[in-house]
């Protein structure tokens, strides 16, 4: 820095004529992004709760020092869009809709396909079946899922009839609408299928054929009490096992490897002291995993009926094999959602209650960075970039 400054003073000392004119800039230059994105990039959904017709997804480098370092680009998503991304091809999917007069007029539902490098929409699939309109749910990543090696994209439809719509991404068209009983959530299951949790505390499973038609169905009879201790519909899926936290702090394992889901073990996130202090899981996105398969759950103290959305003050880390807590990570500010980056140096990225992002080392729990200045945005859900 000093060296630079001395050089600069030296230059100032020259006569002006000794300095060449700055070069003329070429117009029309547009940036592109490296593919795959580095491990430390995340995609953050700005839901724009007060301008829902024009939400967006921001591509951020969590190592950034200030906004010009961390902001890599953005792409739009209309009306609480749903988002998922392929890992085997450079495509990202935004399930959204538009009205031809902003918030009124004729509605067009569309799956927009973005290129990861250019952040341009490269294709769209029009979704015009009125009974298959997507559910607008603010914070569930499991309203949309890729299955069958990323060939089929499934999304949850709610009109309020309930369906899972099946899109064949190769054919770029809707090939099926699977009617659900009163259920929600799309958890990839077996070779080419999915499971959903249901309102009576049961779970249903479906396997599809190569045309997206249902070939097999399965069911787990009611196994939890929605009134007394509901399961969150937002599990962490580690390998083929879904870890579904309950409102009170239990974890229900569900094996998703077979043609139909099957019940695994149930265990508790809490010890006696935790129970005394009424620790509970909660938040907009409250469970995640990392490349080593640990289970992370966001927790708050003094839980009670209705506290399942409360911000979490800590993230607890569990070894799912031994079903023991291996770490407690206190958060600098309570958070409403988080995700964990992939790779050998995983990092926790939270959305805190000030709608800033915070970055923690997932191993040590150390606070690494705060990404703020989202003045007019709602950066609600964090997605690891791969």
């Amino acid at each position, binding site marked *: 820095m000093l060296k630079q400054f001395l050089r600069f003073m030296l230059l100032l000392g020259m006569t002006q004529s000794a300095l060449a004119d700055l070069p003329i800039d070429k117009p029309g230059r547009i940036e592109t992004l490296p593919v795959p994105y580095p491990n430390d990039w995340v995609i953050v959904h700005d839901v724009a709760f007060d301008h829902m017709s024009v939400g967006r997804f921001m591509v951020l480098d969590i190592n950034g020092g200030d906004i010009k370092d961390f902001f890599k680009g953005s792409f739009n998503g209309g009306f609480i869009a749903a988002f998922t991304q392929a890992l085997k091809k450079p495509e990202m999917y935004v399930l959204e809709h538009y009205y031809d007069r902003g918030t009124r007029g004729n509605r067009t539902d569309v799956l927009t396909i973005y290129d990861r490098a250019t952040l341009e929409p490269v294709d769209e699939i029009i979704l015009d079946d009125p009974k298959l309109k997507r559910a607008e749910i603010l914070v569930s990543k499991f309203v949309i899922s890729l299955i069958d090696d990323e060939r089929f994209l499934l999304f949850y439809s*709610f*009109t309020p009839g309930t369906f899972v719509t099946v899109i064949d991404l190769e054919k770029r068209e809707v090939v099926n609408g699977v009617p659900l009983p009163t259920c929600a959530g799309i958890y990839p299951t077996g070779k080419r299928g999915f499971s959903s949790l249901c309102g009576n505390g049961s779970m249903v499973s479906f396997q599809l054929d190569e045309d997206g038609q249902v070939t097999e169905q399965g069911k787990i009879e009611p196994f939890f009490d*929605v009134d007394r201790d509901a399961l969150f*519909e937002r599990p962490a899926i580690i390998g083929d096992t879904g870890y579904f936290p309950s409102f009170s702090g239990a974890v229900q394992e569900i094996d998703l490897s077979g043609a139909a889901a099957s019940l695994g073990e149930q265990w508790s996130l809490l010890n006696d002291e935790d129970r005394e202090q009424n620790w509970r899981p909660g938040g907009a996105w409250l469970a995640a995993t990392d490349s080593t398969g640990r289970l992370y759950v966001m927790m708050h103290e003094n839980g009670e009926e*209705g506290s399942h959305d409360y911000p979490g003050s800590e993230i607890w880390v569990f070894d799912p094999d031994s079903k023991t807590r291996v770490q407690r990570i206190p958060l600098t500010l309570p958070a409403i959602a988080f995700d964990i980056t992939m790779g050998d140096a995983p990092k926790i990225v939270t959305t805190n209650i000030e709608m800033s992002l915070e970055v923690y080392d997932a191993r040590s729990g150390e606070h690494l960075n705060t990404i703020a200045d989202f003045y007019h945005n709602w950066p609600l859900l964090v997605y690891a970039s791969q």
Partner: protein
Amino acid sequence: MNWLDNLTEKFSRNVARTSSRRGFLCGLGGVIAGGSIMPLLPVARAADAEQPGPPTVDPGDPATYEYWRNCAIDGYLCSCCGGTINSCPPGTEMSTITWIGTCKNPGDGKDYIISYNDCCGKTSCGNCFCNRNEGDRPTYRPHTSNDYNWCLGTESTAYHCTVNLILGVAIK
């Protein structure tokens, strides 16, 4: 709609960080612990009304977080948007498909079934965001889940604000 009760935090970082994280400011009302049922502004409606019959009580200010009927609300209060507790702002349309909560009226001690109806067709009102989740359940039981956009059956599904209507007294 859900989990968005932290907005005011963002604009009041100078407010003591030690205040309750559970209940968040709503409109100009204060932060009230979720369990409180003491009415702040007692209003004995029937006592001022002229019709005969036994009186009714409905304590509290509908434009606040802590008003008893808001026990499972999740969105902008229409009372702050040009509507009222039970009517939509001008130019919007009231959804006929709703989610349901059960809220205790601290004035008469009765549990009421409350229908939360979204008003739809204009961009978000933006005023008096409130989120309370007593009795709220996940999206796999839609009729008690406030995470959905319930602007359904309306010409436009664009969400503007939420009213709450009494459907009746809950049967214990």
